[in-house]
């Protein structure tokens, strides 16, 4: 008898399962005058500690939680996208002065700017923020040399609303670095209230909490699933600035799912759509593909201290045999461009005049290999992170291209953790890596990637002349001098060919067509406040 009742319960459940679910539930959404914006992300927020390295999605989050002193000016382009410029405007600082010699920066803060908890944002908070960056946890101490700062004492509080930064020498990027989201104000009071003896900078607290100085506060934190960002009522620009009532961040790991959600209108914005799907997606009149050229540069790294790549001729031959067009056409579906220099296309001082590894000149490549003693070719592992489909695909094309000049490439796709470790060992002979310069500056880019003692110089490239050129450019505020220096540096590096410059993919953001206000800053993170919807 008992079994029968269990069985009927099961039946009842199944009937319910099918019966009820056949009616689509309609979400009850509050009809504010401003709409909420729903974004489908391809990754999760790991944590929001603003000074620790974090996931790509987490940088989006912190960009909307921490407000720097100054910020990039944005100007709408013909597609209605707001594009960040090289000029800066005041954010929490109303205005700032630079001394004549370019070494003293005085920032005048807005007297009415407040944190989310209602306490005023003062110069002391920025002093605390810079102290934390320079002497505290995290990686930001690596950025301050570009401002020509090496000590926290160089940031001084003049009074509650005046902050002064004194640099060792004039540097090109001081404003740019000050404008980075990672130098957004942290409340000193909040930090000190949550600090402990083991954790003097309250890192533990800031991993999941913030006292926002930026436009949003996080009102719902459901890790791995959903985060709700609501306008910060104390934001200095006021509530009228916001084009949406809330921004909802959804984690959707599977790419095809994100596409389908966008097509049905269940989300407004979808990130990380594979390039190969874009043309088909663009056919949908309700969807707009925003493809914005960026300076993110993917490159084929050839380790200068490991045979056979210790011979420049081998590196040049490889540079000639890479099927660049095929990669851009097939891997990026045309949504990208080919850089012909270690400086990205679109960056100040870029020139392609020294690049002569044109597509298809294979006899010259074979001749170079022959000269280097590799006339019969060689076999080599090409290491890529398996999570990045684009790089795995590009490796397949490179494999085909290099086969033409007798080089047998084995593709070695490894998990992220393993890829990083191999890369950081500086002993990986052949790999595909990418670089993006937040500083959007040629010298910044070359410093990290090509200076002899730089850690991210994973190809172990070392040329003292290049080092000297980079240093001179980093600490020059004279545009003409900088242009000459960067030209010469490009000439040498292109000739030495430590990288084969593969591609610069566009930043692709697919939205419903009625979504407005896609804003693009140097750090390529989304600033939610601009996002709105037309009906």
């Amino acid at each position, binding site marked *: 008898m008992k079994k029968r009742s269990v069985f009927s319960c099961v039946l009842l459940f199944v009937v319910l399962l099918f019966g009820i679910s056949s009616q689509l539930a309609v979400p009850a959404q509050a009809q504010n005058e401003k709409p909420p914006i729903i974004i489908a992300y391809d990754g999760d927020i790991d944590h929001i500690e603003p000074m620790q390295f974090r996931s790509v999605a987490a940088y989006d989050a912190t960009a909307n939680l921490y407000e720097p002193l100054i910020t990039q000016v944005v100007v709408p382009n013909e597609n209605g996208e707001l594009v960040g410029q090289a000029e800066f405007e005041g954010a929490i600082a109303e205005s700032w002065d630079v001394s004549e010699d370019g070494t003293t920066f005085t920032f005048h803060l807005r007297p009415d700017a407040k944190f989310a908890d209602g306490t005023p944002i003062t110069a002391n908070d920025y002093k605390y923020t810079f102290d934390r960056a320079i002497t505290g946890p995290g990686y930001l101490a690596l950025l301050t040399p570009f401002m020509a700062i090496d000590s926290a004492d160089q940031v001084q509080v003049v009074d509650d609303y005046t902050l002064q930064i004194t640099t060792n020498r004039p540097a090109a990027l001081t404003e740019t670095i000050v404008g980075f989201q990672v130098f957004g104000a942290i409340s000193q009071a909040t930090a000190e209230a949550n600090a402990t003896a083991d954790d003097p900078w309250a890192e533990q607290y800031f991993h999941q909490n913030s006292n926002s100085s930026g436009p949003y506060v996080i009102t719902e934190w459901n890790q791995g699933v959903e985060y709700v960002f609501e306008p910060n009522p104390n934001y200095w620009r006021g509530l009228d600035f916001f084009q949406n009532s809330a921004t909802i961040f959804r984690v959707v790991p599977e790419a095809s799912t994100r596409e389908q959600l966008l097509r049905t209108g269940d989300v407004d914005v979808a990130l990380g759509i594979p390039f190969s*799907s874009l043309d088909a997606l663009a056919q949908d009149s309700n969807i707009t593909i925003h493809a914005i050229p960026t300076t993110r540069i993917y490159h084929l790294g050839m380790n200068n201290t490991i045979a056979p790549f210790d011979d420049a001729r081998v590196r040049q031959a490889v540079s000639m045999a890479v099927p660049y067009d*095929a990669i851009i056409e097939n891997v990026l579906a045309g949504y990208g461009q080919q850089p012909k220099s270690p400086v990205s296309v679109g960056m100040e001082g870029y020139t392609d005049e020294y690049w002569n590894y044109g597509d298809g000149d294979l006899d010259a490549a074979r001749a170079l290999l022959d000269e280097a003693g590799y006339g019969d070719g060689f076999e080599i592992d090409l290491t890529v992170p398996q999570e990045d*489909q684009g790089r795995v695909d590009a490796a397949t094309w490179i*494999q085909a291209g290099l086969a033409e000049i007798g080089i047998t490439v084995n593709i070695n*796709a490894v998990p992220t953790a393993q890829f990083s470790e191999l890369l950081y060992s500086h002993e990986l002979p052949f790999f595909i890596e990418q670089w993006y310069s937040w500083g959007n500056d040629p010298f910044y880019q070359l410093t990290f990637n090509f200076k002899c003692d730089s850690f991210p110089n994973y190809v172990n490239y070392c040329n003292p002349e290049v080092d000297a050129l980079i240093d001179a450019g980093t600490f020059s505020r004279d545009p003409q001098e900088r242009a000459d220096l960067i030209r010469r540096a490009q000439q040498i590096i292109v000739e030495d060919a430590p990288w084969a410059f593969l591609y610069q993919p566009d930043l692709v953001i697919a939205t419903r067509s009625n979504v407005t206000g896609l804003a693009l800053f140097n750090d390529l993170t989304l600033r939610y406040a601009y996002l709105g919807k037309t009906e």
Partner: protein
Amino acid sequence: MLRMLLRHFTLLLGSAILMGFIAVAWVGPDQMKYEPEKVSRNTYEKPSPEYRFGTDKFGRDILTRVVYATRLDLRIAMTVAVVSFVVGSVIGAIVGYYGGRLDSILMRGVDILFAFPAFLLAMVITGVLGDSEKNVITAVTIAYIPYFVRLTRGQMLTVRTLQYADAAISIGNPSWRVILIHLLPNTLTPSLIQMSMVAGWAILDTAGLAFLGLGITSPTAEWGVMISDGAQRITTGEWWMWLYPGAALVLAAFAFNLIGDGLRNLLRLQ
């Protein structure tokens, strides 16, 4: 006769499909006019006389890749099945025969392995070993060895008490001879059925791992890799990319399962 055929229809059908696959794996690759990993500019071509199953995002011929994948996947499945069967049966026979402390220690080990679902165990082991065909085979094999250990041990516990075991021992056979020659063969029937099932599971597991980016990875022609590639195009209409490798995968696993069922029927082990 007809009754007989009908009775063992599943076994016959399964064997026929498997024979077909083996034939394809054996001679198929030589008949192909394309190479499985050779890229071309003819990307995303629909099935046509030129490309029977169409082409993928690298302009590679899907038919060629399915055929090469057949060879690879069958090789993996059969290796896994045979190795886990041999290793598992021998271990099971030994611990079942001797019993005692060895038995209880080893069976605790087997319990530990059993506490992980086979697929997850294979997932972690592949993660540890890295991606290659050999490592997938190793990982999946380790995951299925406990099945055979448990089966054979159970059988061994029964047969070792039978009279012919005593007889074999009393005429002076060494233990290994008693175990391997006299007893083990009498315990193998259930393991043979299990072996066929494991071959089917191994195919599904290999493909599942590849779908998650583990084990066999792009650009190797493997059914799971191909489905994973095709899955990215599920909304854009290139159905041939995921349909053909998926169908091959399901059909192959189906054949092994049919054979397993049929064998069970044949050996009246219901």
